[in-house]
């Protein structure tokens, strides 16, 4: 069929080539399809996961994420006593309205309706032997909380209107309502007087006006004072039951008079609505809350200006750091996947062009222009690549609800351009009118020029890789460079291995020549002949290295999560009791130690933000006072050693507590305890600033924490406020960000391993014709078919061996160089960078896959080539 005279294209040729090479074309299409799905969907999924992570972080933070606005009342003192202001409830509502105004409508939309509250100090119920406390609370939420009075009535004012209460008069009466459960437990009815005293043992006059039942116990307003509905027993670990008395708008003024002037403050609490938060909006919320806190902090502390307080910004910052770390790692993995895919596509293009070399050269010799040949090849590859990428993007859209086009473009470009570029270059070089120089020195010069070009290109890649790693280690996350650093390092390492290949095959050939094994000689000779092909080695080693990197990262994060949970809890179980609970702590520890299945119990005092003076400067840190020998045994960490005498173990990520520094721990009414920092403290509770001293150091000791190990520890602490290491680890592992990233790591490892195998198959297929000629010629020397297969295996083995050994080794190197700066600790929750964990079974699998592929390929190739007659060897050109 003649070419199209208008376009110069030979349509029949295009169709014929496509039919003949349907296999490699379909394989390329499959790679494009898979990568389009992965690369197109993952960024979108990461964005969704980041949103989910932010919501999850806010949910987990609980009250820590609440935004609270606190304001004092106007002073109510008069020359002779205190004034009763009857409209205090309106002041509370006014504070709520003002806070809403300050937040603005956008931020308010991300928060649940505010709850205003006024809560009294804790009173002690003196009636009976059991430890019981009472707090009075006024709550005002969105239309609630609604209650139904089942006995008596709502709390009424003690007096109507404004009045003056003289100093030193009898305790002012205040009426409260009790829940049915509270009334039952206290054994009181409407009208009863509760026998309560404050911390100074001053009696208070609290009367029960009625018994109520919550209309909707799930009303979020109750969350501000849950003990109003359900008396909380033993929440402090000491067996104390907390009761609450509900104040009404009418009895609130009396409650204020019942306590000291500043004891009751107005508080408005905004709880973030996780469902409305996204990763993007969370950053806005964090910035706004920081501004509000900073503005309120600058106000005078004695006026009635509202004070904003929240840890939401910290919660969001922590989540943000995790999201940044996970996003960077996802981008790193995607870059690796893209690199693996592009290398496979290049190998597929190389194979296609080799298969078509005869027809392309013939077409060129018959007058086809390079442009026409290029366009013909481009049409075919574009059709295949766009169809595959379209299907992949559709899949990505269905999975993630969107397509990350920038990630799809590189693989699409490679799929479209590789075959035309290779084809045109091959056709041009095969038909150009440039002879090999007859002059030996001219040939040498041409060879050196080519070698210099190659060395320059390789040096550029190496320099880029070194630059990327240096930038990553110096600037860390967020510099843009980290994304390509691991992939570039893997490619650069692969190039180095290509350069080292002759150092492997050359001596191997020389060794076999000295041996008495003819097959080894032929295999080594073929290996040495083909070891100069760089692309297969780069593709296989890079894929194996990046698959290893993904596996090592996944294993490190997985193990790091356990380490992070250990750092956060310190033992199998940790019990946190309230301060000043020394006696109960010791008693509880003895009870736990006596329980079956408990192997170790240690008590200690943990004080957050303790005032430590290091070298004359205040350095707030978590102060841990503990039997250091028992604690070191409990931790089982050889890095933590017991400390004795006037010394302390320190940990300081800020550098404020260096080893050897002189420490002072101030004491009330006593001289400061002086210690010397000596040794590294464990990150107790995940703290970054820790000072750990032994009981014998002389620091006053009031234990409030129990650590317990052993299979029975969990059961032994039932009823106590305990934190379980297994639960913490499981929670962190199941967190959307971590679980999503681990899944992506595994997917990337599998994809890259498959890509490496595909690359091996393609490289073997590209070299198969040459190998067949050689083996056929060797068979004319007397080799049997089986011996010929062994020689073929000898040719393929070095590449497989380099990929099997060099790939994993390079992957481990890449991981060790980049894992720290990639911020894995942010995901594992560890204080320091986690130690790399070698997934030995996975590494063995990666190595074994390439090595096992050799016999499979040889047998498959032998089966395919069996159709070709040995007789054809006499007519085939080229050297063996």
């Amino acid at each position, binding site marked *: 069929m003649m070419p199209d005279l208008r376009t110069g294209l030979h349509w029949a040729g295009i169709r014929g080539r496509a039919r003949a090479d349907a296999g490699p074309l379909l394989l390329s299409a499959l790679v494009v399809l898979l990568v389009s799905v992965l690369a197109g969907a993952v960024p979108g999924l990461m964005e969704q996961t980041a949103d989910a992570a932010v919501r999850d972080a806010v949910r987990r933070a609980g009250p820590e994420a609440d935004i609270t606005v606190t304001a004092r009342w106007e002073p109510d003192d008069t020359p002779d006593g205190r004034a009763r202001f009857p409209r205090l409830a309106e002041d509370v509502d006014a504070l709520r309205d003002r806070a809403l105004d300050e937040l603005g409508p956008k931020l308010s939309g991300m928060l649940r309706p505010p709850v205003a509250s006024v809560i009294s100090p804790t009173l002690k119920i003196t009636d009976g032997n059991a430890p019981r406390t009472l707090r009075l609370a006024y709550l005002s939420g969105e239309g609630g909380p609604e209650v139904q009075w089942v006995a008596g009535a709502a709390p009424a004012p003690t007096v109507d209107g404004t009045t003056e209460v003289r100093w030193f008069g009898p305790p002012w009466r205040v009426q409260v309502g009790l829940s049915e459960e509270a009334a039952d437990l206290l054994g009181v009815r409407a009208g009863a007087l509760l026998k309560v005293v404050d911390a100074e043992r001053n009696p208070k006059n609290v009367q029960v006006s009625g018994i109520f039942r919550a209309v909707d116990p799930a009303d979020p307003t109750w969350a501000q004072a849950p003990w109003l509905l359900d008396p909380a027993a033993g929440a402090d670990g000491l067996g104390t039951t907390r009761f609450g008395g509900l104040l009404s708008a009418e009895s609130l003024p009396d409650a204020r008079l019942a306590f000291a002037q500043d004891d009751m403050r107005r508080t408005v609490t905004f709880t973030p609505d996780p469902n409305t938060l996204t990763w993007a909006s969370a950053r806005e919320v964090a910035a706004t809350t920081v501004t509000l806190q900073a503005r309120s902090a600058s106000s005078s502390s004695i006026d009635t200006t509202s004070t904003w307080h929240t840890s939401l910004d910290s919660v969001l910052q922590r989540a943000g750091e995790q999201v940044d770390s996970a996003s960077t790692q996802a981008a790193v993995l995607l870059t690796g996947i893209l690199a693996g895919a592009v290398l496979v596509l290049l190998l597929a293009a190389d194979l296609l062009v080799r298969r078509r070399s005869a027809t392309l050269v013939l077409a060129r010799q018959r007058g086809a222009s390079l442009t026409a040949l290029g366009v013909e090849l481009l049409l075919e590859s574009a059709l295949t690549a766009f169809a595959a990428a379209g299907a992949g993007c559709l899949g990505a859209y269905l999975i993630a609800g969107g397509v990350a086009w920038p990630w799809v473009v590189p693989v699409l470009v490679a799929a479209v351009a590789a075959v035309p570029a290779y084809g045109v270059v091959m056709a041009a070089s095969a038909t150009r009118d440039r002879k090999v120089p007859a002059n030996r020195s001219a040939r040498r010069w041409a060879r050196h020029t080519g070698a210099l070009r190659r060395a320059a290109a390789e040096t550029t890649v190496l320099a880029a890789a070194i630059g990327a790693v240096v930038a990553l280690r110096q600037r860390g996350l967020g510099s843009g460079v980290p994304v390509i650093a691991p992939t570039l390092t893997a490619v650069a390492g692969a190039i180095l291995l290509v350069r080292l290949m002759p150092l492997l095959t050359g001596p191997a050939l020389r060794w076999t020549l000295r041996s008495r094994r*003819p097959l080894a000689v*032929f295999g080594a000779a073929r290996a040495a002949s083909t070891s100069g092909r760089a692309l297969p080695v780069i593709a296989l080693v890079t894929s194996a290295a990046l698959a290893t990197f993904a596996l090592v990262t996944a294993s490190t994060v997985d193990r790091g999560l356990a380490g992070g949970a250990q750092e956060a809890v310190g033992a199998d179980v940790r019990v946190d009791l309230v301060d000043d609970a020394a006696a109960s702590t010791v008693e509880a520890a003895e009870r736990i130690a006596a329980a079956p299945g408990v192997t170790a119990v240690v008590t200690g005092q943990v004080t957050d933000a303790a005032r430590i003076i290091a070298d004359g400067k205040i350095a707030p840190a978590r102060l841990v006072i503990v039997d250091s020998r028992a604690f070191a045994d409990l931790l089982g960490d050889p890095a933590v050693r017991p400390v004795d005498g006037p010394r302390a173990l320190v940990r300081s990520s800020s550098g404020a507590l260096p080893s050897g520094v002189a420490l002072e721990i101030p004491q009330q009414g006593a001289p400061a305890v002086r210690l010397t920092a000596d040794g590294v403290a464990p990150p107790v509770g995940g703290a970054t600033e820790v000072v750990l001293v032994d009981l014998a150091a002389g620091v006053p000791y009031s234990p409030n924490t129990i650590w317990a190990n052993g299979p029975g520890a969990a059961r032994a602490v039932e009823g106590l406020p305990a934190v379980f290491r297994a639960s913490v680890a499981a929670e962190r592992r199941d967190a959307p960000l971590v679980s999503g990233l681990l899944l992506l790591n595994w997917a990337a490892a599998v994809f890259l391993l498959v890509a490496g195998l595909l690359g091996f198959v393609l490289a073997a297929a590209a070299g198969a014709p040459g190998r067949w000629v*050689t083996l056929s010629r060797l068979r*004319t*020397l*007397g080799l*049997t078919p089986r011996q010929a297969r062994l020689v073929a295996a000898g040719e393929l083995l070095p590449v497989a061996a380099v990929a099997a050994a060099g790939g994993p080794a390079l992957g481990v190197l890449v991981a060790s160089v980049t894992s720290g700066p990639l911020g894995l600790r942010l995901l594992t929750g560890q204080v320091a960078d986690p130690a790399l964990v070698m997934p030995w079974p996975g590494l063995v699998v990666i190595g074994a896959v390439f090595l096992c592929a050799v016999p499979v390929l040889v047998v498959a190739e032998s089966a395919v080539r069996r159709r070709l007659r*040995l007789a054809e060897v*006499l007519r085939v050109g080229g*050297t063996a």
Partner: protein
Amino acid sequence: MLRIRGVHRRFGDVHALRGVSFDVAAGSMVALVGRSGSGKTTLLNVVGGLDRPDEGTVEVDGVDVTGLTEDGLSRLRRERVAYVFQTFGLIPVLSAAENVGAPLRLARTPAADREKRVSMLLELVGLAGHADQKPGELSGGQQQRVAIARALAASPRLLIADEPTGQLDAETGRSVMALLRAVVESEGVTALVSTHDPVMMALADRVIRISDGQVDG
């Protein structure tokens, strides 16, 4: 030495060999001539055991090639038949001496004997000073000389050469032909050479013309 009787070979509808029969005496050099597609190469393949005839028999040194198993054919090629290719077929990373010694390695010849034989053969083909050079460092004629030396290494009884001068210029081709003639005589080997070259025909003891798959005359 070589006895061919009624050999037929078909490739689909193409009848490449149609009842070819002839004998070749030991130690003689026979030139197979004919136009392209006449069946010369097919006949060489059948004789050398690289292909099997559909009908007929081929006996090499008393061995019926057509009845041999795959292993038997391998042994035949290792011990009795050698080939010289148009495109030399040398292993590029091995030196000239190592290429020549390859068949001896397969035959498990002791290293000392192998080296002695290789030196002798390189001397014979006039390349004693090029033993350590790789094929890429040799000219086309020199490479074909190495290929001839390699073919003779295992002392075959039959040397099969398909257009051995096809890739060489006329002068080099003539010298290779002369070498081939000389080694046939010195080594006592029987040679079956397909060629278009009149010089080769002149050097041969006998010329067999193949036309349309049949022996002419």
